[in-house]
Every structure is written in C-alpha cells, then in structure tokens.
C-alpha cells in the first residue's frame, strides 16, 4: 500500500504540471482581458496534432517540435484575437464567450471533417525510469520538466520584462495603463497570443503520452476551469499550483477508492472553493 500511494502521488504530480500549463493559458487570458476562452480546449487539441504531424510527418523530435508549436500558437492567438475577440472586448462577458465558442466550433468542425474522431497516437517513447517501487515513463518526466520550464519562463516574462509588466499593468487596471501610454490593444493581443501558445504547448506535451482526437481538448479545458478556480482565476502561478493539486487528487483518490469517485471529489472541491474562498487558494485578481 505505501508503494502504491507513492506511485500514485508521483503520477499525479507529473500530470499536474501539464494540467498547470494548460490552465495557465486560460487563466492568463481571463485575468488580463476578462474573456472566458472557450476555444481553449480545441487549441489544446491542435497542439496535440501539431506534435503528431511534426513527429510523424517530418520526423521532428516532439520537444523540438514544441518550439515551432509555440511560435505558431502565438501567431494563431494574435489572429484569433484580431478576428474574433477584439471587437467584443468591451462588450458584456457573454459576447466574448460566444465569440470564442464560435471559434471553438469552427476548429472542431473543420478538425472533425479533416481528421475524423478516431484516435491518433504519437509513437514516441523515452523508455521508463525505475527507482525503487516507482516506474515513471520518460515522456511524462520530460513533460513535467517542460511544464516547469514553461511556468518559470512565463514568470520571468511577466515580472522581468517590459511587455510582461505591461500585461500585468493592463490586467490590473486597463484605463490607468492606457493613461500611462501602454498600448492596451497590443498588450491584449499579446496576452491572447501567449494564452494560445500555452494551450498549444500543453497539448503538444500531452500528445507524447496519451492518444487524442480533435475532441480531446475539452477534458483539459474543463480541468482548466477547475484549476483556475482552485488557484485563483487570473493568477498564472496559482494555476500551476491548482494543476498540481488536481493531479495529486487524481493520483491519490484511486489508491483508496474506486476510480469513478475522482470527478465526484474533484467537483465537490470545486464548489467548496467557490463557496468558501472564491478568490482561489492563492488569491486571484478580484
């Protein structure tokens, strides 16, 4: 039993890091522009297919492929922002929510037509690392490392660079930031680009160990909401912590009860956090 708990905890944490990256993208967009990005899930799925085509088609190492996915994700984010979100940015939440929902439907529609909904698999293996009772697949270990790296870079970007500080300023008070001469539209576009990039990266990492279809992103989008609320919506570091908490729960609950109890406990916790501490565990943007 202790060995099983240890294995479950480690497995959960590994996955938690990746959940964290997925949630960071969503919570950043919410924090900066108050947009509920319902295209987040399909964008994660596109990241998965990015890894698949770069690896299967071009033989590119999946981790090198992530660099390309990041660039494409950033650009795609700009485009989606410009086409679908910019015009409704000052409208009530429902407008931008529907706009991103439309983007989501378009991606899923085209994706289903072109890629069907049969599962794809990236046939890539790094073997497994064994230590005592633990056996960790190499791809999951790498994904956790990559997730930590991405989170670290995002933190440095937000706190140590000018565009990052501008994002935080706009997030804090858009009107005041504009008065200080910060071009808020560009900052918003950049934030959406980074959010999309993070979705793509999370998808790219997940694709190295789970099979996927164009619909697979929905699960992670749903988890991103829960994680966002857990960690505090609008707080990227909170998202990483929230991801770890969720991963840990998913790992450890099955050690003591049937696996089907996982969502019950997860969502009970979600409601509990909303009731008791609506700003999230680490405090979000109020």
């Amino acid at each position, binding site marked *: 039993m202790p060995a*099983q708990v240890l294995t479950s905890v480690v*497995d959960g944490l590994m996955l938690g890091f990746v959940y964290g990256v997925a949630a960071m993208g969503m919570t950043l967009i919410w924090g900066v522009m108050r947009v509920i990005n319902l295209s987040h899930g399909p964008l994660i799925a596109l990241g998965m297919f990015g890894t698949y085509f770069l690896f299967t088609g071009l033989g590119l190492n999946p981790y090198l492929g992530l660099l390309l996915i990041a660039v494409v994700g950033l650009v795609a984010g700009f485009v989606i922002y410009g086409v679908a979100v910019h015009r409704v940015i000052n409208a009530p939440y429902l407008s931008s929510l529907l706009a991103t929902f439309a983007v989501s439907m378009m991606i899923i529609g085209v994706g289903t037509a072109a890629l069907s909904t049969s599962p794809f*698999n990236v046939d890539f293996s790094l073997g497994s690392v064994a230590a005592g009772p633990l056996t960790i697949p190499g791809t999951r270990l790498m994904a956790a490392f990559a997730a930590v790296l991405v989170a670290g870079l995002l933190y440095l970007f937000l706190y140590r660079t000018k565009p990052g500080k501008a994002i935080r300023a706009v997030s804090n008070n858009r009107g005041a930031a504009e008065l200080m001469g910060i071009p808020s539209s560009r900052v918003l576009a950049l934030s959406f680009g980074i959010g999309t990039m993070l979705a793509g990266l999370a998808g790219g990492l997940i694709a190295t160990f789970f099979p996927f*279809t164009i619909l697979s992103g*929905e699960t992670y*989008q749903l988890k991103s909401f829960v994680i*966002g609320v857990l960690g505090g919506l609008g707080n990227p570091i909170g998202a990483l912590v929230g991801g770890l908490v969720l991963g840990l729960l998913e790992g450890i609950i*099955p050690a003591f009860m049937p696996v089907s109890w996982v969502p019950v406990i997860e969502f009970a916790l979600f409601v509990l956090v*909303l*009731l008791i501490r609506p700003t999230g565990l680490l405090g979000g943007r109020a």
Partner: protein
Amino acid sequence: MRKIAVLGLVLLVVSLTIVACGGAPAATQPGAAPAAGQAAAKTGGEKTVTIGFTTSQTGSANLESGRQTNGFKLWLDEINAKGGLKLADGTTLKFASKSYDDESKKDRVQELYTKLVNDDKADFLISPYSSGLADAVAVIAEQYGRVMITAGASSDSTHDKGYSLVYMSYTPASRYLTGALDLLAKLDPNAKKVAIINEKDKFSTDVVTAAKAYAEGKGYQIVTFEGYDTGATDFAPYINKIPAGVDAVIGGGHFADGSTFARQLLEKGIKAKFIALLVAPPEPKFAELGDAALGVIGPSQWEPLAKYSAEGAKAAGVEYYGPKLEDFVTEYKGKYTEEPSYHAAGGYAAGLLLQKAIETAGSTDTQKVKAALDKMDLMTFFGRTKFDTSEKTHGLQLGHDMVYIQWQKGADGKLTKQVVWPEAGKSASALYPAR
C-alpha cells in the same frame, strides 16, 4: 467576486454539456450475420431454397456486415456451382438468396424480415450483422416459424427469451475471455492472482462479469476489478491498483483504449506473465505498439491462421464438415482480393451450417431441420459448432470457442500474430511468461 463564482459555475455546466455532447467514440460491437430464408419450389427432382437476410449496405456496420455477406455469397456460389445439394431421397436443392439494405438500423429489420418471409417466401433466415439487429429479428423468425442462423451476433440474452428456431453460430459474449483463463490454467497451474480492468460499456462489462465468475469458480483470486469510462486515455490510476506479484491482467474494451492500456502497462513496468485484452489485439494495427504488443493475447471469433482440420475434429471425436480452412481462405481471397476477417468466415459458416442441417434432415421442412440443428455437433473451418437445446437458453452456441491470438516475435524479430488457443486450432505455443 460573487459574479466570478456564478460565472464559474455557469462555465462548468457549459463545459460539461460540451463534453457530454462531444460523445464517446462509437464502439464497435461484435456483430451479426445476414439472414437467409429458405423457399423451396418443386421442379421435378430439383428444388430451389431461398435464404433471406438483410445486409448493412449503409450505416455504421457497413464494413463488417458487407464482409459477412461476402462470406455468405461465396458459400452460395460454391454450393450452386457444385450442382447444388443432393438429398438422400434424390432431390437436388439449389440455393437462392434474397436480401435488403437494413441501413444498420434496428427499427428497419423487423419490417424487412417480415417482408422476406411473407413476400419473398424465404425458407430459411440468416440474421443481420450485430447483436442488436439480430436480437430484433429473432422474434420475427420465431413468429413466422423460420429457422434462423445468427452470425455476427454474440449477445447471450437473445437466447434467454424462449426462442426455439434461432441458432447462434458465434461464441457468446460471456465466453470471450473464459478461454483465456483456461489457457492460463494450462500454462501455469500456480498462477493465482488476476487483475481485471475493463471498459465500462455493456459488451465489455458483460464479458468481464462472466470472466470474473468463471475465474473465481476456478479458484483464481481477483486482485483488482475496475472499470474505466469509454474514451479513457490515462490508465495510470488503474495500473497503480494492480498489486505487485500479479499473474494475469485481463480486460480492455475496444481498439483505442485497449491499445493505450497495453502501451501504458509496458511503460509502467507491470510484469504480468499473462495479458489478455478484448477486441484490440487481433487488429493488425496493434503490432504498431512494438514491445507493448509482445505477448499480449486477444480473443477473436476466427482467424485465417487457425488450424481447424479433419485431424483436429477426429481428435475431438466429432465429424469435420465442409471445405478445408486453407481452401476457404484461398477462395475468399480469389473472389474478394482481401484476407477473410472473422465476419466473412462467419457469413460462410452460417450458410454451411444450414446446408449440413438440411442434408442431415433430408428435407427442407422447418421442424426436421430444427431437429438436425439440435443434434448437430461438428467441426468446420470456422471451428466447432454445438447448440444449447435446453428450454431456457435454446440455440445458444456451446461448441464454438474463441480463437486466442498472441503477438510473438518471429524468426526475423518482427511481431507476428499466432493462434495459441484452443489446442485444436493453435499455430504456435503460447509465449509464457509474456513479460
């Protein structure tokens, strides 16, 4: 703050709805066969027997049903090319078929089978493909007093409704994995611990519930019994529940989840000596898993590799009937330019079983043919056939065994599929321990 909380809840509901609507990938269930009717018209010493059935020319079961019909048509062409079937009284029977497109839909088949009996005067019926469709038409066969052979259908429950004229040619779902346990018992009498992890759909649940009861009856200890949702991709929580020192892991569901499960079993370093999964392993694509496929066993209704033969029948003490397995494979390939799947073999076998029953009965009379089917115990290229004649589960297949394939390394180091069970049909000995 309150707004955010409310919004969060709304979002959750929206997302859940989207996920629910996204739906799980359609599961392919083991299926059904076309139905034949027998219409005999006397023309002196020659009669024509009409066999009626529907085929899914369109809809979800199109591929499997098409293959089943191909198999049946091959039988039909061959028997007529030989000049028909000569009965003991000197009458020569020629066979004709009548079929319609059932669009893979349950609501159409009852009407179509009624039409086959009443308008097309079908003498015998063969079921449509898939358990659901076959189940729906069974009542029509019974009502109109026509013998029906079901092919491509494996649901046990069709045969607990008191039908007396419906005969199942496939191995029922309840025995999909029991043969694997027999194999395990033979390979390693000391094996005790079995972990069962399966998809939570009806088919897989039925299979493992039966397998669990069977295993416990044989003295195995079930150390894990867990079901996962259709569409699951992360099996780590389930694999972590498999205790060290497990002897066998059985379960699975369909292709996507089964192959992922096999892959993660290897990645997580599970050292099970015996792994048997539903549906996925017999698919050629399963070999793409590489090392994760090695040693994995899977049940199939039939495989071209199986070695059912006259000698095997003799050893089992039953009659061998019909073409040799190699001849069936060659003829099928010649006609349809592809390797026959078990669906195709099932279609041919349905015709063949009917042929044998009519031959034994020496007549096309329903009651006489029924009596012949009740007494039938023989082997064909498709395996053994014997029907349950008890009142409660009449027509259930008792003789036919699943064929168990295992992925093994060939002389060239490449993965190849071998039939390892049953004894009478095996092409190689099982690799044990698998890992």
